């Protein structure tokens, strides 16, 4: 694949030249590809199954959410292809502009007519046919920006003030915006990504511990003293959901009932009972519980295995990459996806408090789908660049 050509030309050449497409196919990492495809399929089927109840109830159309998800997947697939072909140099060059864009978009959610309030929080920008969640873009742009900067300024690795603090400032600005939405889960996630990138970027462990210890009181303040009852309630629900089984603890209890009642083989596809207005957010953040209920332990382990496969490939792509930027980007992307997987599953299984993180590729939600697909597209791109193809 010619790296000198403009990516748009490449894209058009795929459509016009079958030969290119064949090459693309043979160069693709098959484990990564099939695990992605399978997760997408499971996601679509489960979104349909889980959202049916709410679709009928609110829109009198059982396919309402399914259709929207299909559109999202189609759109995401387009950007996925773009991401597999796009020149990584170009991506790197655009990193700070992309970061700026996402910060601006994070700010835009608060503006009337542009931002859209849903459920008491400003997380969305309305594009008419589709809503977009800028915090999803923020995750990706932060990874790209940090991969670029860390790769460029390797000599600053041992310096706390020049090697660590600037990134903290960047994520601090983003974090403040996100926390105002208010979205504590994503804020913590962004912080987490930052530390992981700094860690991968060779920073001293001690330098990373300072801000972590400094951050703990801030976190405690936010949860207990900021006046936001919601965060506190989530923590209380996590500690003892049975204290208020119909109140704060309701969602987590219903989640446990859903996943637990699936047993070994599940109730069968489409047979979930908890989706009938027992488990809130059953097709978004809690879709894993419905998978557990309908497909059982076999189903949940299957999903975990697919994510393991995805992770394994991403990790291998990263460590075999010959380029610092690409390695950091690949590992950052892979870990970002896996962190979401872990946060999401942990919330469903009551290992961690509910953080509002979706299950990548599976949960209903176009923004997350789009960004995740672009990220996986970039992984393919990096894989091809460093020729760590499986068939090589």
């Amino acid at each position: 694949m010619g790296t000198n050509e403009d990516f748009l030309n490449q894209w058009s050449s795929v459509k016009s030249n079958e030969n290119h497409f064949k090459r693309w196919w043979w160069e693709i990492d098959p484990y990564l590809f099939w695990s992605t495809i399978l997760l997408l399929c499971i996601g679509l089927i489960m979104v349909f199954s889980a959202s049916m109840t709410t679709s009928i109830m609110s829109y009198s159309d059982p396919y309402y959410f399914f259709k929207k998800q299909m559109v999202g997947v189609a759109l995401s697939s387009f950007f996925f292809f773009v991401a597999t072909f796009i020149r990584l140099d170009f991506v790197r060059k655009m990193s700070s502009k992309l970061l700026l864009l996402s910060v601006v978009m994070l700010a835009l959610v608060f503006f009337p007519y542009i931002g859209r309030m849903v459920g008491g929080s400003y997380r969305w920008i309305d594009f008419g046919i589709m809503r977009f969640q800028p915090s999803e873009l923020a995750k990706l742009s932060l990874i790209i920006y940090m991969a670029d900067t860390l790769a460029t300024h390797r000599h600053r690795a041992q310096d706390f003030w020049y090697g660590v603090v600037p990134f903290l400032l960047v994520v601090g600005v983003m974090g403040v915006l996100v926390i105002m939405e208010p979205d504590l889960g994503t804020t913590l996630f962004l912080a987490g990504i930052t530390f992981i990138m700094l860690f991968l970027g060779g920073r001293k462990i001690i330098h990373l511990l300072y801000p972590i210890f400094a951050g703990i009181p801030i976190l405690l303040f936010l949860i207990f003293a900021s006046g936001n009852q919601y965060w506190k309630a989530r923590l209380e629900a996590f500690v003892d959901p049975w204290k208020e089984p119909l109140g704060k603890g309701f969602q987590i209890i219903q989640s446990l009932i859903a996943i637990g009642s699936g047993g070994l083989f599940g109730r069968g596809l489409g047979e979930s009972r908890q989706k009938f207005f027992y488990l809130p957010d059953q097709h978004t953040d809690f879709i894993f519980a419905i998978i557990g209920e309908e497909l059982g332990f076999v189903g949940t382990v299957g999903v975990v295995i697919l994510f393991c496969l995805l992770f394994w490939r991403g990790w291998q792509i990263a460590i075999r990459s010959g380029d610092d930027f690409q390695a950091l980007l690949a590992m950052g992307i892979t870990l970002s996806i896996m962190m979401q997987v872990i946060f999401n599953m942990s919330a469903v299984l009551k290992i961690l408090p509910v953080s509002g993180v979706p299950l990548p590729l599976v949960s209903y939600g176009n923004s997350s789908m789009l960004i995740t697909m672009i990220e996986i597209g970039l992984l393919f791109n990096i894989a091809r660049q460093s020729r760590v193809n499986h068939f090589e």
Partner: protein
Amino acid sequence: MSSRKFVHRANFLAMVIFLILGYIVFRMFVLQVVEGNEYRERANMVRFRMEDLLPSRGQILDRNGEILARDTEAISVYCIPRMIENPESAAQKIAPLLGLSLEETQEKLESRKSFVWLKRQVPLHLKEDLEKDKITGIEWNKEYKRYYPHAPHLSHILGFVGIDHQGLEGLEFSLNEELTGKMGYMTFERDGIGKEIPGSLVYFNPQSGYNITLTIDRTIQFYVEKALDQAMERTKAKAGVVVVNDPRTGDILAMASRPSYDNNHFNEYSPEAWRNLSVSMLFEPGSTLKPLIMASALQENKVYLGESFYCGGSIMVYNHRVRDIKSHGQETLEDILINSCNVGTIQIAQRLGNETLYRYLKNFGIGESCETGLNGEEIGLLRKPRSWSALSIGAIPIVQEMLVTPIQLLRSVSTIANRGILMKPRLVKKVIDENGKVVREVLPSPVRRVIDEENADLVLNMMKKVVDQGTGKKAAIPGYSIAGKTGTGQKIGEDGRYAINRFYSSFIGFFPVPEPRFGILVVLDEAQGEYYGGDIAAPVFREIVQSLNHYAGIMSENAEVTVY
């Protein structure tokens, strides 16, 4: 190539991720495989709402097909508190409709439970009122309420059912399985807002319970209840029992006892009143059992007709003096029965001896269960000869020191009227399913022959003379052949000794002789004033016979020969 440091750190993070994923899989295993059933049960508990489709309970009919017990439709009202928006206003609407107190209703509507009964089995017409002013969260389902058209008559026989339509007393209890039918059900699962989950509806038609035809005759029962009520009024007795049977088949035609209750409103009475004394009252039968001793002696050829006995008013048994009412002087064999002579009976019993007497009484069914299936049935008491006291040979013939139930006594003595064959009492005649198919039929069942036909006829004739000229005169109706025997048994007081002035007064009779179609036992417990069975129990018998004669069309056999 990327730096070694990067690879090390990436590998380290990869290990961490895999470890966490391993822990997640472990948690899933615990939740889904180890504790899976628990969660599934918990899920079902909240979600499954099955409407139990109660089958209509089988009807109970009398021998002529008249309905004694049936189901009527009713509704039971419940609420799903979570769905009620304004408990206060809802309570104000619903409480007067159901006749509940306002506070109680509101408390129920505000309950934390997912399902609360407001009131069960309210009349069907309330449904319209509830529908007219429908409150979300207040629902009802159809149920059946048991209704007894002839209550309070037959209460003891039929018993009653509880709120869940399960038989608790009487035949409702003992025949519960056949009456209940198969529970149908409609399970549907409810979603989190209380609606039916589509496609989850499963409907099984209930299968109605079997209809049961009894041997009871509603009309005879009516006469019996009426006569017994009057007798209770007259004698101020503490308790009273009347049982009517057909000696030839063992069919129980009527059975009533006092104190009684109304089974349509059973919970307004004390459980003591639910006791069916006809099968549960234990008493000393007194002289009503003498015909059996007479029959046994005849069967064993220990006595013969025309033999004469002497009664000097008392007899010595093992140095104890057993007294009679008076000295009957020289008397024939039948005079012993006619006069209800204790001295004569003891002499006959002594000729039989302990073992033989015991064997016969046992064969006559004393101390043996009647298996009527009515709950609370006692089996009576007949001690083995070796535990008889020295006095027993004297005591048994005048028939103290043994305990029988009314139904048992009637069955035993009916052997005489049934030409020597002991029958099993029959209360249930037929069990029929919805479509009229006979599921179970109970035929008259002879238990054993106890005495020969001619001996039975001899004793029955003696009993006829008891009514014609002896202690049972007050049972006589001119123109009708009636056989009977009086009985007056002393009660045992709390101290275990015979109490003065506390008696069981009884009369047992059969008619028309020589082929009796009816056997009637009347027992009055602790009648005030007069207490001789011949004086107070016989007239009750007579009243019932008079009504029966009209009902059964038994004609006066000989208008000319009415005076004795």
